[in-house]
């Protein structure tokens, strides 16, 4: 990475060099067009996009052609005398009817693609996609009730965002837990949100659906080849709207089954872990990690918060008040804070509450065990 001023200097040079390089190199530095994607829908959309684009180019060539000819030929400095015509019914009819015909020609394939996009029937797999401030939750719906769910969070380290470390290739487009889907299967996404409106977008799948609290909307895809496909939230959803990417791994069915079984095993493990008792030191250090990953973005790493927007943890009435209220706030959220009860495991919840009550000068001295969290959630 060059410094700001150097990048600026080499910019024109860049453009010239890039023009001489093969198209592929150019395209990564100066991407120009919409992706064709990897699904039939995304290819149809790309086709419509190019079709309407070329219509626009054709109309532009005619209109601007006449205009530039006029600007060149009919100027006073060339000694021309102005004409005086100001009406021509035939001409006006022609340029009303021709655009209508072009629009009809465009509307037919557009309608076909729209029908295709709306055909969400007969899915092989259903995934419930829930938008949260600022992460996605994916729940694989299972006929036998053995649903698997997990959260998918940005994995780009803060050091890259704050420019203290070089940015990786998939900067801001990488997550800790990607969504896995099998190739050549119709996957239906049931899209909703838990707080504000988000929008789930993967350009290469040609799928974009707004995630709206109170609604479950459908979208679908059938990916034809294995690969990793990246997208982002596309509806302003607050502070970290730019930091909640989508990553989809499309894999062969066998690999998908293995992955899903691994997830199920892990879920059983977490249920077991909730029964154990941890030492204060264990809770505190695990809590610190959980805090850094989930809480520090708003309440800041030093627990001081942001006045008027995000309350401080240090000395807060919740973190220094009754344990039950503290667990309640973290599990259920409130006053603009999202709920974490679903997103974090009982161990993580117990750890982070313990940490908050004993860090930043909050010397409460108490410790919360995973079983306390489990009991709280059951008692609700």
């Amino acid at each position, binding site marked *: 990475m060059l410094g700001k001023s150097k990048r600026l200097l080499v910019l024109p040079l860049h453009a010239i060099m890039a023009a001489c390089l093969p198209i592929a190199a150019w395209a990564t530095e100066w991407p120009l067009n919409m992706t064709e994607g990897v699904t039939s829908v995304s290819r149809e959309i790309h086709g419509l996009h190019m079709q309407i684009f070329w219509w626009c180019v054709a109309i532009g060539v005619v209109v601007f052609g006449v205009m530039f000819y006029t600007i060149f030929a009919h100027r006073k400095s060339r000694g021309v005398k102005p004409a005086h015509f100001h009406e021509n019914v035939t*001409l006006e009819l022609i340029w009303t009817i021709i655009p209508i015909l072009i629009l009809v020609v465009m509307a037919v394939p557009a309608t076909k693609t729209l029908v295709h996009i709306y055909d969400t029937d007969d899915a092989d797999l259903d995934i419930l996609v829930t938008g949260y401030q600022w992460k996605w939750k994916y729940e694989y719906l299972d006929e036998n009730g053995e649903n698997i769910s997990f959260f998918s969070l940005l994995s780009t380290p803060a050091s890259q965002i704050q420019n203290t470390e070089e940015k990786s290739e998939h900067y801001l487009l990488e997550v800790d837990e990607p969504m896995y889907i099998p190739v050549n299967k119709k996957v239906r996404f049931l899209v909703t949100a838990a707080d504000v409106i988000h929008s789930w977008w993967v*350009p290469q799948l040609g799928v974009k659906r707004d995630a709206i609290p109170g609604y479950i909307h459908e979208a679908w895809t059938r990916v034809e080849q294995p690969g990793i496909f990246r997208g982002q939230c596309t509806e302003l959803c607050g502070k970290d709207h730019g930091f909640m990417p989508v990553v989809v791994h499309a894999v062969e069915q066998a690999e998908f089954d293995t992955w899903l079984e691994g997830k199920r095993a892990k879920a059983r493990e977490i249920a077991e872990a909730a029964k154990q008792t941890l030492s204060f030191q264990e809770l505190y250090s695990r809590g610190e990690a959980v805090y850094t990953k989930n809480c520090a973005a708003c309440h800041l790493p030093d627990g001081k918060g942001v006045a008027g927007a995000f309350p401080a943890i240090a000395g807060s009435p919740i973190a220094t008040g009754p344990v039950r209220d503290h667990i309640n706030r973290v599990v259920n959220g409130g006053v603009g804070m999202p709920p974490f009860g679903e997103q974090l495991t009982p161990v993580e919840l117990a750890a982070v509450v313990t940490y908050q009550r004993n860090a930043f000068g909050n010397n409460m001295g108490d410790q919360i065990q995973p079983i306390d969290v489990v009991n709280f959630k059951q008692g609700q």
Partner: protein
Amino acid sequence: MAHGPAHGLTRWLYTTNHKDIGTMYLWFSFAMFFLGGIFALIIRAELFEPGLQIVEPNFFNQMTTMHGLVMVFGAVMPAFVGLANWMVPMMIGAPDMALPRMNNLSFWILPFAFAMLASTLFMEGGAPNFGWTFYAPLSTTYAPASVTFFIFAVHIMGASSIMGAINIIATILNMRAPGMTLMKMPLFVWTWLITAYLLIAVMPVLAGVVTMMLMDIHFGTSFFDAAGGGDPVLFQHVFWFFGHPEVYIMILPAFGVVSAIIPTFARKPLFGYSSMVYATASIAILSFMVWAHHMFTVGMPFIGEWVFMIATMAIAVPTGVKVFNWVTTMYKGAMTFETPMLFSIAFVILFTIGGFSGLMLAIAPADFQYHDTYFVVAHFHYVLVPGAIFSITAAVYYWLPKWCGRMYDETLGKTHFWLAFIGLNLTFFPMHFSGLAGMPRRIPDYNPLFANWNMLSSIGSFLFGAAQVLFLYIIIRAIVSGRKATDQVWEGAHGLEWTVPSPAPYHTFTTPPKVD
């Protein structure tokens, strides 16, 4: 009868003169243009490179929100009302606006509205940060406390716009000189008449939607809260029922401006006057039936999606008629290229490009890829900046000699044009590419894939900003020491406003002119 203006501050506070009020509207909007421009440059400075350098994400969101609100409600709309105040009475041969005291009130509440809106930047929790479209529940349950001040400011702006619109309709329908039939009115007057009806129809809808927000926030209702039986999508329907006509409110008067300027410098009458009037009316009527094309990805039923797609595509027809008429007006004219004409020609070309991307966005399936990306940002800036802003700039150059009796410097004017033209295209053209490549809008940071286009955009935006500082200098220089203007000012100019002396006397047409 003929008396001059009062002196000192009271002249401006108490004035009921349409020229004084027009001048105040124009200077106010120019100030807001710079304020909104500063917000835009903060955005572009942050986006110069990947990574967070200058502002925090929350402040970045405040900037995108305030930039949009200030430019739409503070810069573009008051500028057109200012032009209407100055020009409509002079174009129809009226001595003043029909309701001069209300005219004073509708201007003087605006500075308070914007002072209140700007003050939210210094409040605890910060300014509104939910985008100028303020979608609920981000703008209700999850909003900073300053949202209440934002709502009050929007109410005042809306009241001002409605009063301005009533005044313009009353003036045009009642105060035309004898013989000035409706179909003889200059197109600027026609487009403003239609715009005023749009304003009266939709500003109350905006007032309604912000009032529902106010109720949700403070009085326990759940209009937009799913948990209370409300509907976040309802917000979007109501907002865009206002919002789509609103974009035509910002462009129809611009059509009127270039329809005045192009015939003047082509020395040839406007081609297809009556089809221009009908096209403007068609666009206005269609604008009420296309709002949900802003919501193609919210999950409307298929038939809704399809109807809004077809209705939106239909708007291309009357809009195309307008562009063809302007080009045909130039055809076989005897053109010269003074600054107002340069801005008007750029308007036709660049607004058409914005129209093309609009046509692309109308294709609902393709919108699944375009929606809420930089492609949309490129689209609406191509219709608003070379559309509204360039036409306002052209109007200022065109009528400034009539307002202050002095000419601007033509060389400086042309320099301003080329700087603005290059700056604009450098800023907004690359956004088509970054959007198609997959960059969402309203994000403070992005993958390095989009870095080159963003850097170009940022460089362009600072060039465009610098060009506007030159504009301010050109205007001040013209007012202070410009060459004396003739009464007709432009060789090819026709219309009542050119029959009065330059500068226009404080009172004009106290005896109505005869129009044949």
